[in-house]
Structure formats: structure tokens, C-alpha cells
């Protein structure tokens, strides 16, 4: 087995079985030193179970967790070089800020003077200088967040685990904390493992993201890879916004596939090299709203897919505005991005448009077996 010290954390074939339910199903990965790694998945996908095994609160049924080249099998949570920021932070309410941060240092048997120094230092690094005497209840949501992280980072762990800590915050603060977390991670150069069901959190902060569902990793890659080159239908559907249809392959051409959705919309998609499809295969197709080009005039340059559509609805949301349009022949509804330019300012319901997109923007995947 590969015991590379360049990796802060390695998981080899982790399986966690509960009676007749497999929460984590043969997961293997390695995380480079100092990187921000996210595990993204819907609730119940097994990501919390995986994180708890890394922290040591749960043991894998089989498989091995290696941190900094040392096997963690049989190592208790208080002996592991990892610390965890809990979903609801779990700051001790009976202690003030400084006591919360000092808790772990006391356990390491460090002398009082040094503890005081370290606490002040870490408070300064999270921009909360002078808050040591405050009670936990006096802090705002964002401050609690930073104290919870400081409480772990002061112990200098090899890996910091974060269990959806931004879930309880309101939208504005969450946006702010995303950036802050990323900065903290870069400043401390600690390996972060962040689990979340919020794809935007994962994409914004991470160096690497693992997309997880039903206990398995579907794809591990950097955010761009996941967004632009999803490996399968689950990743394509879960990461980012997409038009998603079930379809059948009706023709295999030298360069492209011809597919037909259940409502009869015919589209051309690129061939998938590693997964050859035959005529009649059940597939799922995905098109990102921003990949669709819209125009009010009928263009003459030939695109792979050109459709005439009627505007059904205008969903105005500033820069994220979208149009819901209906294709003329199949009545299939398509979401497209509405550029906020003067050209489309006077667009209204019922207008006719032409939309076009190249075949390589149509992602086609074999239909996944329904396993839920």
C-alpha cells in the first residue's frame, strides 16, 4: 500500500455497514498537504458518516484511514492529529472564548503562560483580538464560527474537518464566511476537509471536490472539472444548474449522437469516447442554461442544435436572470440564461426566439440505475 507522506490523509477502500445498509461504500482517496478538500453530496449520502470515521467517532467496517503516513485504525478521537468543527459548532457554553480555545491546549499539558500567549495569537489571526473574556452567548454567528475554527487550529492539527458549519448562517453571512474560510485555510496552510450539500460552498472554496451519492464517490476533481467535464449523470445534475431530460439514442453518426427526449425534442450531442452507446440506449442529457445562445433574428450560420422557441416566462434575478422557453415542435421547456444587455431588455412573454448550442455542450450519459 502506498504510504506517501506528501498526502496528509489517505483513505483506502473504506466501507461502513450498518446492519443491512451501506453508508459508505468502498471509498478511496488521498488529500494533498495543505489543500482544501470538499465532499459534496445530498443529505443521507454518507458524507457525515465518512467524516465521523476520519475524526474517530465511528470505525470503518473495513478499509484503512492513514493520516500523515500513520494508520488510524484503533486510534481514539482524542489521540488523532485531526480536529473537527461541528455542524452546530459545539462551543462549550460554560466557558468563555479564551477558555474554549485553551481547552485543547490544557489537555496537551502546556504551561499557562504559553497557553495565554497562544490563545491571544490565534484570536489575532481570526481577527477577534480582545474577545477572550466574552461569553459564547455574546458572540454573533460569524464570530462563533471563527472561534470554533480557532479552537481547533490552535492545536495545529494535520487535518481540520468541517461538518457543514455554515449551514446555520443567513445567506449574506454565509457568502462572507465562504471567502473568510478560504483565506483562513490559506493562511494556516492546514488541510481542510469540508463536507456540504451546498455546491456553491464546495465550488468556491475547494481545491478538490469529491461528489458523493449513496455512499460512493462519483467524481473527484477540481471545481472546473466537475462543472465542465462531469463524469456521469449524477455529477452533471448535482453540480451547477442544468436542463435535464431523459432521452433515447436514435442514431449514432461519425461525429455526433442523435438523441430524442421523451417529448420528442431531437438534439445532437458529442460522442462519448469511453462509453460507447448504441441506438436505443436510454440516456440522460444535460445542457447548462449559460451554454445556450439566444438571438432574436434567424441566424444563417449553422450550429449543431438550432431551435425555435417561444418565451414562456422571464425569471429576473439580476445577473442570474433566466428565460423559460418552449420549443415549437415538442413543447419541451428549456431554461436559458438571459444576458442583461440592451438587446433583450424589451423581451416579453410570447416572443419568438432562436436558440442554438454546439453539440459538445450537450452532455449525454447512460441512464443511472435508480438506487434509492
Amino acid at each position: 500500500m502506498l504510504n506517501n507522506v506528501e498526502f496528509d490523509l489517505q483513505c483506502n477502500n473504506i466501507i461502513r455497514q450498518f446492519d443491512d445498509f451501506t453508508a459508505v461504500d468502498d471509498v478511496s482517496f488521498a488529500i494533498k498537504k495543505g489543500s482544501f478538500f470538499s465532499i459534496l453530496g445530498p443529505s443521507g449520502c454518507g458524507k457525515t458518516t465518512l467524516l465521523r470515521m476520519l475524526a474517530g467517532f465511528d470505525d470503518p467496517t473495513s478499509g484503512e484511514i492513514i493520516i500523515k503516513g500513520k494508520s488510524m485504525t484503533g486510534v481514539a478521537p482524542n489521540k488523532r492529529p485531526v480536529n473537527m468543527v461541528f455542524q452546530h459548532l459545539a462551543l462549550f457554553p460554560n466557558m468563555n472564548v479564551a477558555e474554549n480555545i485553551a481547552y485543547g491546549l490544557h489537555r496537551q499539558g502546556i504551561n499557562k503562560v504559553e497557553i495565554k500567549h497562544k490563545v491571544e495569537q490565534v484570536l489575532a489571526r481570526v481577527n477577534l483580538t480582545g474577545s477572550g473574556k466574552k461569553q459564547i452567548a455574546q458572540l454573533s454567528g460569524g464570530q462563533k464560527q471563527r472561534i470554533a475554527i480557532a479552537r481547533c487550529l490552535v492545536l495545529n492539527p494535520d487535518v481540520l474537518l468541517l461538518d457543514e458549519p455554515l449551514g446555520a448562517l443567513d445567506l449574506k453571512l454565509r457568502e462572507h464566511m465562504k471567502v473568510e474560510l478560504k483565506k483562513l485555510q490559506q493562511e494556516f496552510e492546514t488541510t481542510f476537509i469540508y463536507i456540504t450539500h451546498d455546491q456553491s460552498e464546495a465550488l468556491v472554496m475547494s481545491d478538490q471536490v469529491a461528489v458523493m451519492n449513496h455512499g460512493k464517490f462519483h467524481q473527484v476533481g477540481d471545481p472546473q472539472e466537475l462543472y465542465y467535464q462531469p463524469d456521469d449523470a449524477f455529477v452533471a445534475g448535482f453540480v451547477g444548474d442544468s436542463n435535464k431530460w431523459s432521452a433515447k439514442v436514435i442514431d449514432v453518426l461519425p461525429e455526433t449522437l442523435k438523441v430524442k427526449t421523451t417529448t420528442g425534442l431531437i438534439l445532437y450531442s458529442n460522442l462519448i469516447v469511453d462509453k460507447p452507446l448504441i441506438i436505443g440506449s436510454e440516456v440522460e442529457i444535460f445542457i447548462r442554461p449559460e451554454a445556450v445562445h439566444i438571438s432574436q433574428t434567424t441566424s444563417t450560420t449553422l450550429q449543431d442544435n438550432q431551435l425555435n422557441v417561444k418565451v414562456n416566462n422571464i425569471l429576473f434575478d439580476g445577473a442570474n436572470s433566466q428565460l423559460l422557453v418552449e420549443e415549437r415542435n415538442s413543447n419541451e421547456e428549456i431554461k436559458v440564461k438571459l444576458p442583461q444587455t440592451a438587446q433583450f431588455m424589451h423581451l416579453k412573454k410570447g416572443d419568438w426566439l432562436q436558440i442554438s448550442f454546439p453539440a459538445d455542450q450537450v452532455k449525454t450519459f447512460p441512464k443511472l440505475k435508480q438506487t434509492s
Partner: protein
Amino acid sequence: MNMTAKANSRTPIKLGLFLLLCPILLWLFLLVILPQLTMLNISMQERVAPRVYEYSFSNFIEFFKEPLYWNTFLRTAIMSIIATILTLIIAFPISYYIAKMLRGRAKGLLFVLCLIPFWVSELVRTYGWMILLRESGVLSSFLQYIGLVDGPIEFLYTDATIMLGLVYSSMLFMVVPLTSTLDSLDDSYIEAGYDLGGNGFSVFWQIVVPHAKPAIVSGCIVVFMLTLGNYLTPILLGGKSSLWFTEQIFTQFITRFNWQQGSAFGVLLLSISSLIVWLGLKLSRQSFSKVMS
């Protein structure tokens, strides 16, 4: 609601509140305050001639002059404190097990199992202990049967037996508040304690105990007061040697028909229980209102 409607509704609400509070106010006044004041009044009277009474502290002076009285008094207080501490030590692991270790059905079942003995009256439960512990009782016969002892052994009428009975009859009042408070302690606090490098000892003293402190104090207050004022258990399990202060009060009121002396003892018992509870709250730095809410 506009201003006039608000103004109009104010008087009926006040009347309603008053009517709602009436039963509790009456109960407090008639059954708690009035008898205590009467008792205080009686305790300070001295009979100088038949049907002639004078105010004096002679009843209290009598208490301090007679060693049996204040020895019994101190013994009762100390035994009650020991019983309270023992109850806490035994109840804490039980509560922790029910609240934190068990899940689902087993949890409810064990909690109910703790409650079930209390469906039977204290008298019957105490007689149950007597059947087990008396000279011709179950335990004594069993020890003779397996050949561990030659003759019958009397387990009743010792301080240990009284303690056993007191702890047993108070257990519920400690287990219930502790279990519900420990239940409200989120597991993540305990996990965070371990995660940050704590061991079982530090997690227990720095996380679990501070969280459970109000319940510990309120459980202790209730158990202490019930034990101090207990009459049945010490008399039945301790017999003549029980020397329990409530027994002295009973003797004064019923046997000797000395209501003045009995009242003085009653006032003293109330004073010491208030004093010890106050000390307990001071030592644990808890406020009475916080503990009882």
C-alpha cells in the same frame, strides 16, 4: 387591536389573572404560610399554669439543654446529607446511561423501570425491604441456605439499613431531573471534548458536570428535604435506634402532647433545612430560581 380595545380589555385580563392565581395563593397561604406562622407562634409559648401561656424561648432553650435532642438533630442532618450524596453518586451513572448510552425503546423502558417502584406507596415499599432484611427474612434465609452463615442474621435496625432505605426512596427524584438534563446535552459537546484531546475525566468534569449542574443541585435539594423530613423509612427500618428528628417531633405532638416543644422542633427543622439548602446553593454558585426552573 386598536388602543381603545386594548384599554377596555385591561381590566378583565387583570381580574382573570387574579382568579387564575387564586387557588395557588390560597394554597400557599392556608397550607404553607399560615400553619408555619401558627407553629412559630406556638413554639414561643410556655405553659406557666393550666391554660395559661406566656411568650418565652424556653422551648428552644430546652432543645439545647437536652443532648438527646440536639444529637438527634445533628445526626438527622448529617445522615440526610450523606444520603443525598450517595443518591447523587448512584443516580448519576444511571441517568447518564439512560440519557446518553441508550436509544429508542430501551431508553424509555429503562426510564419507566426506574419509575415503576414509585407506583407503590412508600409504606408498602418499606415493608418490602423489611421482608427482605429481617431476621427471618429472604436474605437471611438465603445466606443460611447456601451455608455462608450458621444462624439467622438481623439486617434491620442499623444505620446502614436506614441509609439504604433513604437512598432507595429518593432515587427517583434524582434520576428524573438528571436524565432530562443530560438528555438535553447535545452529543456534539461530548464529542468535541474528546476531539480536542480530552479524556473521559476532563470531558466529565468540564463539559458534562457543568451542563448538569442545575439538575444536580435541584435533585440534591429535593432529595435532601425529603430525607430530612422522612418519617416512615427511618422508623420502620431503623426501629428504636433510628433517632430521627421527625420522630422526636411526633413524640412531642402525639405521645407527650407537648405542642409547644413539638412546634419548636418543627421550626428548628425548617431552619436547618433552609440553612443547608442555602449553603448548598452558595457552594455550587447556583441561584434558586435557575435551579428550580
